[in-house]
Every structure is written in structure tokens, then in C-alpha cells.
């Protein structure tokens, strides 16, 4: 999966053909491909500037009188694992739903791997793998059947090898012929991860990927995320601050739909120490200090 050539092949396979103006689109697809080729060949966390894969610019979302997301802006680069934190009701899920294109923002815009989510929605969605909260899946389908459906919906012509690959990655061999509704919570979460990875996306957005898992399952998912992070950008929403310290290269805490702090875990811990945040010098303490009174 981490071989550059393989990534480029996958890219070619999933880039949808031109829509309205075949000529100009073909050129842009060519350009995209060569850009992607360059990016996969050169960009790694070690060498040079990694490219920006997620650009969120001033998104706003109202639910009636409540402002769930209030002018949120950030960028995430290749190789980064961004931990998206906030108390319940802080607007995390709404923000994630906007970044994945499920919800339309009232204002602002989102670009995924250079594609505007509003104007080039399908192209943008091709670049994205998403695990929604609670890992929803079609319960009556078998694991293999469900993954095959996702692969087909993503336009993969021969789903077999892609399904085999993610079944191995998420260690689902034992349950691949079982129906999803009979699986344990841990397996369901892994099925959700597997579907998010089926097209080897550049951008991975995971909403509470380890919520409700036992310690072994948590460790397995965290290891998987760490292994994947090298050539992708990952946004991860979670409540578990321990997990953030283990897996994330950057942390953003939001409350009332706005960014409170944004930095590497080390920077945030340093800031906690500088500000004299009471406690044992952990992210938990800073989180509580910043968001106290925000809990709804």
C-alpha cells in the first residue's frame, strides 16, 4: 500500500472520467495525475513540504438559532494525523460532516486534494475515506458483500483484490462471510475502517474510531492508524486524550464551533505548563481547563 507506484495506479483507476467538457477535463485529469505522481514520489513527512490535502475555509453551520460551527478554518497536510477534540456538542461531528460533504455549510468552503467539495463534489469524494460515528453499515449484508458494494459504488472495476486487501489490513478474515449485524462492536468498527480504506484514499476522516472498543481492539486500531499515516492525511475525532498523545501529530481543540487551540501535542503540553494549568501536565488537564463550562 505504501509503494508509490501502486498508489498512482489506484489514482488512475478512481479518477472519474470527464463530465461536461471532455477536452479540458482530460487535460486537468492528466495534470492531476502527474501532480499526484510527483506528490507520491516526493512528498513524505521526511522530504520537503508535504502538500495540503484538506483546506477548510471559514465554514459556518446553523441549526435554527444555534451556531454549530462558527467560522472554522484549518488545513491538514499529507503525513499529518490531526486529532479533532472538543466537548460533546462542540460541533465536531457537524464539522466532520461538512468536511466530508455530507452536510452543506451555510457559508465557507472545503477543498479536498485540490477539489472544491461544492463544485467538484464527486472528484473530491473520490479522494476521501470516511468512517462515520458508530461505523454504520448495512447489517443484513456479509462483510465481503458490504465491502464489495462500497468498492463498486466507488467505481472500482474489479472489487475482488481491493476487498481482499482491506480484509487483510483490518484483520477481518475470520468474519468475512458473516453478516455485519452479527459482529461485535470491535469488528463492526474494523469493517467501517476497511470500507474507508478500500480505494486507498489520500484523505481519511475517522469519527471516534475507537469509541466503545476494548483495550486490545483500541491498540489494534491505533496501530493501524499509525501505519497508514505516512502517505495520507488523517483527521480523527475522539474523546480519548490518551489516544491523541499516542497517534496524533497535531491537535485541535474546538468549542462552540470555533478553534480554541491548534498545535502538536508537545506544543500544547508546553502551553499548559506555561499557562500554569493545574494538574499533572497532561492533555486532559489542558482540555478541561480550556473547555470547562462548555459542556452542554
Amino acid at each position: 500500500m505504501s509503494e508509490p507506484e501502486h498508489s498512482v495506479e489506484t489514482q488512475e483507476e478512481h479518477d472519474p472520467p470527464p463530465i461536461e467538457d471532455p477536452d479540458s477535463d482530460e487535460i486537468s485529469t492528466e495534470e492531476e495525475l502527474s501532480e499526484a505522481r510527483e506528490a507520491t514520489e516526493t512528498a513524505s513527512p521526511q522530504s520537503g513540504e508535504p502538500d495540503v490535502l484538506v483546506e477548510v475555509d471559514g465554514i459556518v453551520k446553523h441549526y435554527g438559532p444555534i451556531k454549530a460551527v462558527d467560522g472554522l478554518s484549518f488545513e491538514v497536510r499529507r503525513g499529518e494525523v490531526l486529532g479533532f477534540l472538543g466537548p460533546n456538542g462542540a460541533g465536531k461531528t457537524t464539522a466532520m460532516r461538512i468536511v466530508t460533504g455530507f452536510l452543506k455549510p451555510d457559508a465557507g468552503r472545503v477543498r479536498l486534494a485540490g477539489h472544491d467539495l461544492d463544485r467538484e463534489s464527486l472528484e473530491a469524494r473520490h479522494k476521501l475515506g470516511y468512517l462515520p460515528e458508530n461505523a454504520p453499515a448495512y447489517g443484513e449484508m456479509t462483510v465481503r458483500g458490504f465491502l464489495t458494494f462500497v468498492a463498486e459504488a466507488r467505481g472500482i472495476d474489479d472489487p475482488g483484490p481491493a476487498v481482499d486487501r482491506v480484509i487483510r489490513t483490518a484483520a477481518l478474515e475470520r468474519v468475512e462471510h458473516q453478516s455485519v449485524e452479527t459482529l461485535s462492536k470491535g469488528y463492526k468498527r474494523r469493517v467501517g475502517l476497511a470500507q474507508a480504506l478500500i480505494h486507498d484514499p489520500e484523505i481519511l476522516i475517522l469519527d471516534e474510531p475507537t469509541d466503545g472498543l476494548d483495550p486490545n481492539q483500541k491498540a489494534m486500531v491505533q496501530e493501524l492508524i499509525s501505519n497508514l499515516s505516512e502517505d495520507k492525511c488523517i483527521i480523527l475525532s475522539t474523546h480519548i486524550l490518551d489516544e491523541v498523545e499516542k497517534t496524533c501529530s497535531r491537535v485541535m481543540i474546538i468549542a462552540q464551533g470555533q478553534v480554541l487551540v491548534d498545535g502538536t501535542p508537545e506544543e500544547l503540553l508546553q502551553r499548559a505548563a506555561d499557562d500554569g494549568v493545574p494538574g499533572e501536565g497532561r492533555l486532559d488537564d489542558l482540555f478541561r481547563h480550556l473547555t470547562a463550562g462548555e459542556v452542554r
Partner: protein
Amino acid sequence: MTRAALRSGRLTGLGAVFSREFKGYFSSPLGYIFIVIFLVASGWLTVSRDFGRFLELRQASLDPFFDYVPWLFVVLVPAVSMRLWAEERKSGTVELLFTLPVTLEASYLGKFLAGWCFLAFSLFLTWPLVWQVSRLGDPDWGVLLAGYLGCLLLAACYLAIGMLFSALTKNQVVAFILSTAATVVFLLIGLPESLEVIGASLGGYSEQVLLSLSITDHFQTLTRGLLELGSIFFFLAFTAGWLLCGMLALDRVKAA
């Protein structure tokens, strides 16, 4: 429509959604229960001495069957449509579906076509009736085919109505009840008794207007063997209208 067109345009993902939904009817008991109830009920209503009187009529026609199809579909089609969106919204898979590179139009039409093909398959399983008619007499095949075309178009209308209500609620039972109620209203306004009452109270052209909007009247035109373009157009436009409303409604409420 080429595969590339299906993949790149507004219908991206239609094939995948269609095939998942269609197989879905056969991977749960619902599909089989539906088929058994439909076949038993339609067979019984057709031959029963109290209803269709198929044998007593001594005519090589399936009129007794076609007469009861609109009423059977009132209950059975909402059973097919109720889960299409309500279940998807309740289980949260709608969030997964609409973050895949699948357009709303493609998934809506994919589900509609899957339901319609399932209903067409159920209708196909009534072939023993056709076989009996041809064995017992010399039926007018044109009338029979027009009748089945009417049944298919009727199923499309009911399905489109049912899908709108399935999109509006997360509760399948509520979707079922509202769909049944709506289809009953559209059937009732076409009956001569209702037309008379409404025509007398509203006056003017109301009777003609209602008649032209009546599912019953257009369906009977087809089952009489008259392939009137107006009636076929009515069914297609009626279905398209409900589908369009359903898509607009779903787009608004999908995240609620």
C-alpha cells in the same frame, strides 16, 4: 447509457445501489413474504366466488385479476417502499452512502428501480393465471399485455409515493401508514361515487379535472386494452413528479 456515463455524471453509482437494493429484497424474509402474500391474495381474489369470479365469468380475460391489483398494491407496495430510506436514515448508513461518490439522484433512482424490478418480478410470477386463461380459452393477448403494462406503471406510481414518505421519516411503520393513506386517496378520487360527490359540491370542471388526475381511470384505460398515450404519459409524469419531490425532501432532511 454507457457504463462510463453512469460513472461520471449525475447517475454515478446507480448500478451499485440498484444491485445492492435488489439483492436486499431476497436476503431478508420481507421479499419472500411479500411474494407469497401477493400471489396468494391475487390468486384468491381472482377466482373467489365472492370477488373476481374468474371461473364463473367464463371469459378468457384477466379482468378479475386486474380489478383487484390497485387495491392489493395499496397495502403491498408501501411494504416494499417503506424501508428504502427510513431504514437508511435510522441506521445512519445514509451518511456513508452520501459521502461515497454517489449522487443523490443516482441513489434515489437506484433504489426506485430496484423496488420496481422487484414488483415486476412479483407480477411475472402470476404467469400461471395467464397460462390458465390461454388453456381455457382464446384470450386477447394485446389486452393482457396492456393490462400488465398498466400494473407496472401503477406499481411505479405507488412506489414513488411510498419513497417520498420513506424519505420523510425514520420510522418504517409511519412511512407505511402515510404511503397507504396517500395511495388510497389517489384511488378514491377516481371512483365514480367520489367523482359524483366532489363534482356536485365543487361544480364546474372539477369532475373532469379529478378524472384526468385519477389513477383508477388511467389504469382502467390500459386494462381495457387501450394503449392511450395520454394515460401512459400520466403515469410517467405522476411517477416523475413524486420522485422529484422525494429527492428534494431527502436532500433537506437527510442529516436530521
